């Protein structure tokens, strides 16, 4: 290069350019390693909302006694279900109070057993009474809580009970026959306390029954004994006092046959309340010589059905009845002692959940459970557990699936209906069948422990045969 050229101003400009290029290169190197350009070499995505939620299982089943609910986190199983009051018969509901959706739920219903509810005879195990229709058990009685039954109420229809075992009534000379019962009735209540009738149910022809004690609508007690042929009818023994006062009273009636005299005496709380004497003619038999003891119903009195509470019906049919106690037996033990030698003693303190599986009048060994049909359906959403199945079949233990369940926060209608099977004898009408029913819901797979089971097996849950 020409030396003179280097001395020209242009050579200075070239030098400055070189310096600028060097600086630019350094700037690029710095920038490439700084965050500004480092971001170009990495791409970052942050998923902030990776969430998963576990559902909740919380159901309630509503029957006649209101909702039976289980909270989320509560597990009950078939082996250890939640006991629910009331009955599923009629209209009820199933509510999904959790967050689990129907697609993740499964439900089944099943029955455990079926039997006819009984009122045990403390002295003769083969002679229980079978209560019908609206009978409330373990009511407060003369001996405290649980010592009485209450008749009347819902479902509609006269409530009563009758023995399954027929007896023969006798009245021999020298015999003392006694019939005692505790009763309580408020003003306006009353009806037949007990009766002896040829019919095992409540359809006897008027006048066919015998030995009836009833509480009239005026609160007075009347004891009647009917003879056959309508001849020489003993007059009824009616008290002058009223006993429909809401208090417990012990009525004790004696029939004493002595020679040609029949003396019927009604005692209340140890005091004579009424007495009648009549000519006793052995050849003229009483109307009912063979029949069934009833409590709560009689064909000859008005009202026929009793409304109120009863306890400890004791029968001395062997002619050896004791004299009236001067004071009422103060305890159940004392009552039992008083009943020593009695033919029958229905304490009426039953739970309503014990059943009679033996033969019954009219139908023999055919179970009422075979003659009663159950249908359990659901609506909104619709599902059918079973339709017109004999109660005995339902009670066999099989699980019946409920195909549709309510969505979270909604309720599904449940309807359990009862019908008498075609051709079933009217004898079964009103019988109370204990068919423990369990509704079970599971969240998730069959192995899931998220289960809730609702068992309706109380006395109130009984299926009443229509």
């Amino acid at each position, binding site marked *: 290069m020409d030396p003179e050229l280097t001395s020209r101003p242009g050579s200075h400009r070239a030098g400055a350019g070189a310096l600028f290029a060097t600086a630019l290169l350094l700037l690029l190197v710095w920038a490439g390693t700084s965050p500004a350009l480092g971001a*170009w070499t990495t791409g970052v995505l*942050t998923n*902030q909302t990776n969430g*998963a*939620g576990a559902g909740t299982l919380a159901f309630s089943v509503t029957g006649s006694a209101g909702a039976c609910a289980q909270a989320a*986190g509560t597990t009950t199983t078939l082996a250890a279900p939640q006991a629910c009051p009331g009955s599923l018969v009629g209209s009820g509901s199933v509510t999904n109070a959790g*967050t689990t959706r129907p697609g*993740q739920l499964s439900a089944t219903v099943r029955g455990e057993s079926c039997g006819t509810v009984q009122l045990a005879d403390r002295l003769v195990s083969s002679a229980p009474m079978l209560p019908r229709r609206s009978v409330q058990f373990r009511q407060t009685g003369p001996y405290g809580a649980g010592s009485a039954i209450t008749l009347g109420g819902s479902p509609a229809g006269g409530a009563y009970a009758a023995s399954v075992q027929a007896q023969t009534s006798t009245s021999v000379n020298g015999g003392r026959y006694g019939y005692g019962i505790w009763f309580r009735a408020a003003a306006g209540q009353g009806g037949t306390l007990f009766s002896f009738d040829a019919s095992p149910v409540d359809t006897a022809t008027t006048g066919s029954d015998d030995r009836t004690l009833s509480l009239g609508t005026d609160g007075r007690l009347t004891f009647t004994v009917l003879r056959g042929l309508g001849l020489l009818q003993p007059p009824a023994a009616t008290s002058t006092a009223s006993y429909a006062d809401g208090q417990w009273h012990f009525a004790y009636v004696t029939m004493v046959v002595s020679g040609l005299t029949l003396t019927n005496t009604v005692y209340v709380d140890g005091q004579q309340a009424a007495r009648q004497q009549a000519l006793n003619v052995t050849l003229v038999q009483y109307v009912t010589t063979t029949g069934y003891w009833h409590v709560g119903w009689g064909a000859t009195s008005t009202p026929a059905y009793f409304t109120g509470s009863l306890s400890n019906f004791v029968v001395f049919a062997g002619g050896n009845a004791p004299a009236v106690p001067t004071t009422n037996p103060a305890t159940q033990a004392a009552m039992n002692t008083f009943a020593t030698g009695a033919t029958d003693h229905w304490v009426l303190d039953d739970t309503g959940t014990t059943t009679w599986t033996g033969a019954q009048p009219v139908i023999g060994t055919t179970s009422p459970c075979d003659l009663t049909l159950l249908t359990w359906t659901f609506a909104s959403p619709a599902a059918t557990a079973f339709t017109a199945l004999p109660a005995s079949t339902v009670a066999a233990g099989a699980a019946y699936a409920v195909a549709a369940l309510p969505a979270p926060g909604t309720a599904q209608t449940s309807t359990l209906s009862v019908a008498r099977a075609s051709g079933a004898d009217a004898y079964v009408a009103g019988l109370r069948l204990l068919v423990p029913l369990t509704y079970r819901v599971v969240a998730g797979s069959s192995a899931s422990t998220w289960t809730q089971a609702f068992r309706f097996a109380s006395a109130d849950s009984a299926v009443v045969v229509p």
Partner: protein
Amino acid sequence: MSNDLHDPRHRVPVPGGPGGPDGPDHLEPASRPRRRFLPLVWAASAVAAIVLVLGVNGTLSAWTSAIITNSTNTAATANALILKESNGTADCYSSQGAANSYTCATINKYGGTTTPFSPGDSRTFDVTFSNAGVATGTSFKLTPGTCTQTPAANAAAAPPVNNLCTASGELTVAMSCSNGTTFNAAQAWTDLTYAAGPPAALTEKTHTALGAGPGISWTCRFTVALSSTASVTDQGIVVSQPLVWTLS
């Protein structure tokens, strides 16, 4: 500025011309030379007209201007990596955020809470990642955040509240990835994978042999499950865990 050549006031009279000493009386003798020049005048005029026309038409106008067009004035930015995530319905790009880092709130890989888990539930969630930039990514990293739950674990509560973030055999998360736009379990990566376990046990994972050029995709599958024998104390719990994905 005056121009003597064009200023009529300084025009030099032409001898014999109008206004000159020679008047019309001298016209006849002078007309002969002018006739000789007249064809030249006409020819010159014609040439001038031609030149004018050519100049106006461009043939000769290019001669009057010089033009250079630079058609390649471009500048290039450096090649960048852009991470794209898609679950088929929502897309997220790292370039949506400053510094090429974006928080994507529309893709939930644990299933959400709309349909809560019941015992035995197992659900899979696939997300497809791709390199939406022009550089080549060589590694892909998952950095899990802290697992939290609502309500908080409380063994003393009634009913108790389990810890679904840490409890073994209750709520589990499994994760695996493979190349391609769909998950291929048979060709799953061996370095960025997590066998079913509690969410809190998920640790940072890096796939080092990515080689993801522009447009290349890979898919990760999450399997979230609640044990078929899940405790009832798991009920009603919502767990949440951020996941950070880095393509570099």
